[in-house]
């Protein structure tokens, strides 16, 4: 298969990559870019954990620490995990899975990538610590950077809460501007996917035959398209306030800082589902394949996906229970939040049931998928604490929230991404990675991750507030454990990614067309796929999970 032309080798110049409108290549370009930012955000996280390893300031000054957690948050959220699965696996797989030759608007797809790149560059500019390094810079450069409105890295936290974000001297405008531009890119990607899934499905690919990854990507795309504008306008207003002094969120001018939080979370709660829904999709693809069983409750999972996307829009103010919110709102948003718990639980039950009477093999993607189920159970159940009004009052803005969030996003979305990358690695690269190394990576990631964040639950229960540079000495041993975990976790990710990178470049083992005997459409073409995806447009006759021997009746 390798000697044939495929999307990787049919053109090889750099220029052909930079101007490509092929969704597969754009997906890989995204993958490369977000990996760089994953490393950058990870370095910030490690520095932060090292600082916190012992009580007292050891490594950096408080203001540097504040910059570190802001950068970690902003980079990981806006530059890494929001485009994380949709723009990489989504871009690569959506047309393949629905039997299309490309996304609906290929040029728009490339444009989204470049808009993303512009946003990324703006974010990088906002990171330059102009104030700290100006002594070593030539004067004209310092003057130029100052003229651009750059001073020091943003230290607002990734949430940019007003009024602190209105008065701090750092390059907040550039950071919020970057988030705005990245949001624009995200909107265009989402819009493209919605149209693609509606208009370009292969003959016979009805909605009840769509892979669950497509359902998840569709729900994600809807959120991307319709939630992002609200954060766009709030960030825009923040910039207007800083530049022109209009007073929408500024209490000195009659504005209401809590309104900013409403606007911000109207997007930033659904954005959690942008991150994690595609990971649900990935897990939903992996478990049936390695269990040789149909996905249990396919329809229930699809409806649950849509339900999560819709419910995700109606619960935003549960991030604001202590913000001065009215009681009426607090009651409503608490009750509404519980509605998300139900479809999420349904999904977990169905994944586990899929394995019943299966023929289960422990390939690396399956290990990640099973790890995901555990991590997501922890994430989901700790979410219940935070939805419960009286209890959330205690946990809000403590390490409990930090741990819960990381179980959801790192344990959910990032593990989902890594699982997906392993699973579709043969399809994307045409090679096989080293299975043993893959498993070692999994062990390190899984145990490192839990060691990092389980202690943080305990810290939160003890009342340790987040975003603290230093802490009372009784919290020290838990912080030390967490730091050790973070280091192991970091090594684990590096190991897993390097394993795949090595196999991609130097790997000898050639992947067959369909190494897992999957029934999904993307395995129906060669590995890696040809430029046009399929030799001829496929016709679909069944949903992609009809594994096993038909039985008369469902149990």
């Amino acid at each position, binding site marked *: 298969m390798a000697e044939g032309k495929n999307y990787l080798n049919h053109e090889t110049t750099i220029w052909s990559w930079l101007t490509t409108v092929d969704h597969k290549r754009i997906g890989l370009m995204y993958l490369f870019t977000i990996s760089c930012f994953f490393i950058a955000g990870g370095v910030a996280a490690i520095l932060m954990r090292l600082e916190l390893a012992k009580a007292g300031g050891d490594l950096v000054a408080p203001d540097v620490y504040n910059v570190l957690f802001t950068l970690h948050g902003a980079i990981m959220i806006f530059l890494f995990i929001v485009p994380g699965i949709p723009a990489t696996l989504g871009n690569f797989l959506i047309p393949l899975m629905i039997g299309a030759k490309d996304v609906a608007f290929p040029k728009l797809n490339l444009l989204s990538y470049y808009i993303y790149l512009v946003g990324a560059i703006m974010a990088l500019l906002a990171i330059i610590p102009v104030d700290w390094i100006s002594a070593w810079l030539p004067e004209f450069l310092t003057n130029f950077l100052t003229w651009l409105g750059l001073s020091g890295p943003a230290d607002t936290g990734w949430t940019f809460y007003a009024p602190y974000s209105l008065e701090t001297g750092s390059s907040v405008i550039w950071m919020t501007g970057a988030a705005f531009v990245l949001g624009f890119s995200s909107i265009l990607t989402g819009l493209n996917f919605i149209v693609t899934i*509606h208009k370009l499905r292969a003959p016979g690919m009805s909605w009840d035959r769509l892979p669950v990854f497509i359902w998840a990507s569709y729900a994600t795309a809807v959120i991307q398209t*319709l939630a992002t504008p609200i954060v766009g306008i709030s960030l825009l207003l923040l910039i207007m306030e800083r530049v022109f002094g209009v007073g929408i969120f500024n209490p000195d001018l009659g504005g209401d800082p809590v309104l900013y939080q*409403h606007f911000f979370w109207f997007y930033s709660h659904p954005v959690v589902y942008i991150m994690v829904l595609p990971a649900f999709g990935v897990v939903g693809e992996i478990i049936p394949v390695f269990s040789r069983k149909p996905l249990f409750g396919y329809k229930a999972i699809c409806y649950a996906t849509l339900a999560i996307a819709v419910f995700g829009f109606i619960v935003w103010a549960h991030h604001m229970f202590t913000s001065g919110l009215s009681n009426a709102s607090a009651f409503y948003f608490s009750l509404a939040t519980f509605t998300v718990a139900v479809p999420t639980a349904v999904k977990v039950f169905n994944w586990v049931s899929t394995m019943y009477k299966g023929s289960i093999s422990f390939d690396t993607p399956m290990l990640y998928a099973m790890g995901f189920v555990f991590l997501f159970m922890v994430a989901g159940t700790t979410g219940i604490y935070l939805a419960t009004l009286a209890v959330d009052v205690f946990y809000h803005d403590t390490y409990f929230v930090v741990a819960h969030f990381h179980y959801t996003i790192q344990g959910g979305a990032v593990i989902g991404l890594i699982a997906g990358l392993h699973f579709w690695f043969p399809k994307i690269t045409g090679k096989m990675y080293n299975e043993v190394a893959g498993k070692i990576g999994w062990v390190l990631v899984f145990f490192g991750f839990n060691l990092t964040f389980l202690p943080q639950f305990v810290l939160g229960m003890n009342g340790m507030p987040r975003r603290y540079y230093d802490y009372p000495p009784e919290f020290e041993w838990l912080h030390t454990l967490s730091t050790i975990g973070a280091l192991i976790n970091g090594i684990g990710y590096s190991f897993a990614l390097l394993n795949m990178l090595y196999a991609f470049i130097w790997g000898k083992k050639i992947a067959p067309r369909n190494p897992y005997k999957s029934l999904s459409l993307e395995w129906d073409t060669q590995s890696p796929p040809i430029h046009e995806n399929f030799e001829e447009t496929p016709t679909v006759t069944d949903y992609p999970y009809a594994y096993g021997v038909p039985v008369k009746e469902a149990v």
Partner: protein
Amino acid sequence: MADNGLGHIVPKKTYLSIFLALIFLTVVTVWIAQFDFGVLNIVIAMFIASIKAGLVAMFFMHLKYEDPLTWVYVLFPLFLLALLIGGVFLDAPFR
């Protein structure tokens, strides 16, 4: 032209009457604004504006002839907007 399966063609007369209706409603909005109905001022103004917006969307933008999918993506954002405004009004006035 329906044979090529593309968009619906609306008679030009319809366009003209919609245009005239819009101008008429603009005059009405301005005229009615000189009377004070208290809290109803905003309701009346927004009601007329919504009729105008409806006319533009239905006829100028051919929404009337669009498939249910387009309707979903017109109504769902409006629902979200109502949700946002509703959520904000559930908070500030009850603090």
